[in-house]
């Protein structure tokens, strides 16, 4: 898959916009594990981010979504290998790092 779909929110002055965009892997933020996202969910915080009713997003534009479950595609980290089933909750994903509402996500491994 060269491109994949993502939900992107951007800010033009005070106005916030939401659009469905096509991204490529190069558009994702740096990280050490690339994941094919299968499922996500909607938390209250995702609602605040998308509607702009709470100061959740701290980097623009952003792909919201603070939770995902999926399969590792590529990994530069010893703890993860392609094919591993993974789950992510929080850590600033969907707030300062591109998040779950995209068919692919690249994240940093902490701790």
């Amino acid at each position: 898959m060269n491109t994949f779909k993502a939900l992107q929110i951007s800010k033009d002055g005070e106005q916030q916009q939401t659009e469905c965009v096509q991204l490529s892997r190069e558009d994702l933020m740096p990280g050490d594990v690339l994941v094919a996202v299968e499922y996500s969910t909607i938390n209250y915080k995702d609602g605040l981010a998308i509607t702009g009713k709470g100061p959740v997003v701290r980097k623009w534009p952003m792909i919201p979504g603070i939770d995902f479950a999926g399969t590792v595609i590529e990994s530069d980290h010893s703890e993860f290998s392609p094919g591993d089933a993974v789950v992510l909750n929080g850590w600033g994903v969907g707030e300062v790092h591109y998040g779950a509402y995209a068919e692919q996500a690249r994240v940093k491994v902490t701790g």
Partner: protein
Amino acid sequence: MTPKQCMAVGTAGYTAMLSVLALEKHGITPDQGPVLVTGANGGVGSVAVSILSKLGYEVIASTGRTEHADFLKQLGASSVIDRAELSEKGRPLGKERWRAAVDSIGSHTLANVIAQTQYGGAVTSCGLAQGADLPLTVMPFILRGVSLLGIDSVMAPKAAREEAWARLQQDLDLEKLELLSETVGFDQIVEKATDIVDGKIKGRVIVEIA
């Protein structure tokens, strides 16, 4: 749990588990008295009701949507109260009604919950669905020894996450998880995100991405 079930749990459900673990660590046990769950029809609330009932606690569910009382009883609530009882400015100390509580609402609700907690009890705070303020006095703390326990899921260390997910496998009934979740497609994210802020979502929403 399957990837889909993990997302039915999500941050909301894992935060519910962190809240229950915090009460346990404080020494709260089922024989001590009932546990109140506020925002019971919400994500954190519905999962908290399910876990606590499985662990043998008597659960009092507080909700603004009492029409879903049967749903809450299916999840394991023993009784359901109207959240209006807790949402206005209250007295510094009230009648002692529960031993512990899991709150995701904040503001006057959390203040009233604390003011009505039994001697030696504990209340967890993880959310701000009503507001980020907490109009409270120290009375429940200094006269009843009540404790307020803060819950953060976002930056919780790996060990705490592993513990919570291991306990979810053990203490969350998958039939109840199925009952409290609905699945939507990518193109419904914005609609459901708007609904959750408006307090219209019942339980948890799973999004099928690919």
